[in-house]
């Protein structure tokens, strides 16, 4: 980003003297935005999955958001929903960041609203990808960046990026739906619990405990160790393995203590019926 000149100063020669490899001039920026946007329009399930899974604490949050957008919702509605997701208690990113990541990786898309201008190059470009929109997108970026530069402090940069979410409406994409289907917990849960005979009983016990009430780690450890002592054919492994595995496939979640999910409740009912 070049220096912003004062109104009285028309000498731009200093900008020309910036060494190579430094921040690009405005004309380069337009080209970069265009190149980035062209590169960004090719979304893949692999790319979306990578973006969702690279921070595992956020994985269940993203999935729930994608399911939420099975119907159209506004940013504000989504943020309210996200705030209530149990796992979100432990996230370090704000609600809007999740929408931003999903949009940038093709999991959700903006719903066009008639007679409403949206700010931000990315949001404009997501509509139809035309050159005209790319041009206005570049202008919007420049305007938005100029405005951002005149804002208060450097550490507001993340807020700048998320400002474009305000007022938007969203829907899940086909890709997002594919991800949700591919990560449906029921089949993996069943497989997890039944594939190793020496672990089945313990998995069901842990699920059963959490179905009755939230459980602290210490209680689960105590119960697992007791079962292992009583039944020497049960896998003699660390109790945390059961928790890790059940949480990973969506049978349990943590909110101060271990709790069973709806899917976990269903599978428990199926397997103990």
């Amino acid at each position, binding site marked *: *980003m070049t*220096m*912003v*000149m*004062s*109104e*009285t*100063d028309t*000498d731009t020669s*200093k900008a020309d*003297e*910036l*060494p*190579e*490899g*430094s*921040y*690009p001039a405005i004309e380069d920026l337009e080209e*970069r935005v265009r*190149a*980035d946007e062209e*590169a960004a329009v090719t979304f893949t399930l692999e790319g979306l999955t990578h973006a969702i*899974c*690279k*921070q*595992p*604490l956020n994985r269940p949050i993203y999935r729930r958001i994608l399911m939420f957008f099975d119907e159209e919702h506004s940013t504000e509605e989504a943020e309210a929903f996200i705030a209530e997701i149990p796992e979100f208690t*432990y996230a*370090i*990113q704000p609600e809007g*960041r999740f929408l931003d*990541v999903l949009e940038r990786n093709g999991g959700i898309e903006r719903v066009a609203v008639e007679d409403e201008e949206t700010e931000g190059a990315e949001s404009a470009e997501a509509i139809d990808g035309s050159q005209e929109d790319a041009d206005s997108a570049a202008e919007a970026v420049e305007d938005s960046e100029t405005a951002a*530069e*005149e*804002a208060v*402090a*450097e*550490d507001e*940069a*993340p807020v700048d*990026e998320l400002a474009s979410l305000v007022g938007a409406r969203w829907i899940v994409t086909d890709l997002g739906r594919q991800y949700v289907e591919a990560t449906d917990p029921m089949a993996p849960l069943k497989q997890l619990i039944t594939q190793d005979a020496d672990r089945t009983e313990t998995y069901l016990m842990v699920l059963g405990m959490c179905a009755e009430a939230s459980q*602290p*780690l210490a209680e689960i*450890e105590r119960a697992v160790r007791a079962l292992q002592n009583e039944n020497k054919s049960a896998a003699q*492994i*660390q*109790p*945390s*393995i059961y*928790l*890790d*595995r059940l949480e*990973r496939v969506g049978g349990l979640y*943590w909110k101060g203590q*271990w709790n069973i999910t709806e899917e976990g409740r269903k599978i428990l009912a199926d397997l103990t019926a």
Partner: protein
Amino acid sequence: MAELTMTRRTFAKASALAGVAAAVGATMTEGLADAPAAFADAPAEVKTYKSMCHGCIQPCAVLVTVEDGVVTRIQGDPDAPNNKTGVCVKCLNQLHTCYSPRRVLHPMKHVERGTNNWETISWDEAIELAADKIGEAIEKYGPYSFFASGGGGGLYCGFHGYNFPEGFGSPNTFEPGGAQCFEPRVTCAPLVGMVCSQSIADSRVVEPFNTYDPQCEMLVIWGAQPTISQTANSGHAMADLRVDRGCKTVVVDPNFSPDAAKADVWLPVRPGTDTALLLSWIRYIFDNELYDEQFCKYWTNLPFLINPDTRFPYLAEEIWPDYKNPSADPNEVYSNPAYVCFDAKTNSIQPFPYTAPADSPVDPVILAEVEVNGKKAKTAGQIYWEEAEPWTLEAAGEYCWCKPEKIEEAIRLYTDAKVAGIAHGVATDQQRCASEAPLGCLMLDTMMGYIYKPGCTITLTNQHYESRPIAYWGPMMRDLWVNQYGISWVTGYTEKWNRERVENFEDKESQAWYMQMMKDKLGFNRFRGFYNQDTTHAPSILHAIMTGEPYKPRVWYDFSGNKFAVCGNASSWYDALGELDFIIGQHPIVTSFHYEACDLFFPMKEWLEWNGTGSQQNKTFMYTEVVHLGETAHNFISSNRVLQRYREKYKPEDLDNPAPLNRGDFKAGDELTEQTLRNHVAEKFEAESWEYLKEHQDEFIPKVIPEEQYYCYNQHEEIVDDGLPAGFPTESRKLEPYCTMYLHMSRTGFPIAYPAQWEQLETDYNPICVNIPPVEDPTTDTEYPLVITSGRLPYFHHGTMRHAAFARELCPVPDCKINPKTAAEYGIEHMDWIKITSRRGSTHARAYLTEAEAPGQLWMERFWNPEAYDASQKNPDGGWRQCNINVLTTNFVENLDLSEEDFVEGDPEKTKNPWNLVYGSFTLRGFTVKIEKSERPENIWVEPKEFQPFMPTLQSEPQTGDVY
């Protein structure tokens, strides 16, 4: 005055681009006020301070010039015995790195991994976040869900970080070096009986550089390059040794290093075949009776007869139950066992008690096979000779790609000297032979009697014994485990003494807890050599992360460095990121690791901002904090604060818990501040305060041990309080080149696990040097027919300083050295870009054609490219794949998944024991690759002008006070 429309953010960005002068430019001049003439004309305030460089693992003493608060010059301190007035590029890089626009000056939270999009936060918020993420994981899964990692030698975190997780109840810390660098060669020596090792890289070798009474006339540098790795310190000292004192050298190194270029004999050993070459030396010395027979008879266990069933030396009482040992301690405190030998005086087997050589009742034979209780038993010396027997000069020459006559010439230089020594380096630590190679090096100096003599490499400085020498096992061979947890055997004391110590240890709860932690430490049961640093087998941690078993480490605190540049099989760690809940890093700059992986970042000080102490020979110097930028902190402070906050919030009952071990000078419970660290330095120099010390350095620096006291010899012969010669700190009180401790470790975990007995491993650890072939062999590998090895460059240390602009101008990208004949086979010309591929992946380098590499052999340094995520890049990336040999190396983590029937010895992908048996060392050098011509990769810079964005810009950054 024109209104300034430049914000602080744009000013900072502009100044990062072009320096303060350009950023001022036309827009700012009208906003500048005229300074008073007196101020403008006043001379700069110039001060010079004594300090130390931390550019590598061997600190040099330096003089630092500060002008108006800005460091402008660094030069060598003439008082320094090794570096004298010299410094190297690594030191001078600090002028760039300390003021680099890449410096991180505030704690940051990563908006999203892999974006380099950070949010600046306060220290309080950062500490709270770190404590919470660790605390949450521990509440959910237990303390084993947390682990840490350190950096390499010369690391910025210090050993303080190694058992940091113990403070949270977790046993796991790994180091990318560790078992691949330092541990094998440094811990093998005490197990054989030497207090100090042959490691020249870690300042263990000091005697050759003794100028007080110089005696060193011959040095073998085996797998090390001091001129490159510690250029101004032992590199400078080597130059003085060769030039001023005519010391002869032999260099054993596949690479024609500067040390090799100056050597009297260079043995270009094929990468991975060092043990065969060592055995050829041992055989030659035995065959030609060049060894010091008297020393071997009375000061080593080579004459001991070995029980063929147990593989341990016979004790006299096993053969003669009524034997009365004349050297037994009547108080049953010290242990002086009597063994069994074949006595040349009586031509029979006899008890062999510990005595002064002149008082020995026997004349023990070193090479013998005799009958003991109806069984054929050999002496340890005989066993060694038989192992070496196949390795004639010709056999070794062919296998190791050396000329037999050159091997002989090298051996003769070594044996014909009045005294000589082997200085060993990191090379063999990075191979499967990591424990066997140092055994061979130690055997050579032992059989030659080059021990504790003027001019050799194994000496004991500033130390004499008053009593029988003893040895502690555990972190850094100090009494930490013994005192804090009441565990581990102390060698030199009797069984009764050790048993009573354990039984009487009061804190049984801590004792039991720590014993369980040792058992649960990942990979420790199999690779018991990790005891010295109390670290963990890195592939075992990685395997647990990926599989979740035996438990899943998931919150990571990394203390230093770029893990993707320095970890073997770097891609395997990248693949693990999706299994790691939260990753905390600390460093002066964002590296590939922080870019790809970290969620939270603590900004660390550079060494110009440190306080501390370091030594060179008999002199101790001081690291002096001469500047301080931003909110950076000393590397001890962030972790200490995180542990404190965690305990306050999640485990208040542990606030007085002494864990982790007090390894450095500070305990977990100490509330560390920068002033605490300063005061500690002042205490070391006995100054009234740090402030006084800093302004009166000439009174205190260096702190000198008188040379006549520091350089001392033949301590093993000094008579101690039991009337016997001191000997060595082993079970036998002699040097044990037949390393019984390796056998003990693999059988029961003794001495470290004592009083527990661990399961016996499937394979004994080798007690002597045996030939360990490399896992991948270019002579039989048709798919990957070339062998590649690695080493350091003089411009950088480990993963550091790739953002030092001038150093990058000198060395913009790693060159891959290749023999012209080999290059021609692939149509490759000098300076062509090439793609190098192993079974793990591909990377790139420029081909540097040279006869200095053997045909079929390549040499390349690990590298990473911080420019890859410069703001100017169109498609930024982490910069660790383009030119990094660690994309090619292997940690064999996949072998931990293989079942019994999958293993095929000789198959590089299915070998059961691809790691070193003792340390789990995997292969970073001497593996197979293929090459092809290629193009320059994306996002890397090569031309000098491209490095302009790395030029230092923070000189005008205000000096700041302490964060804590």
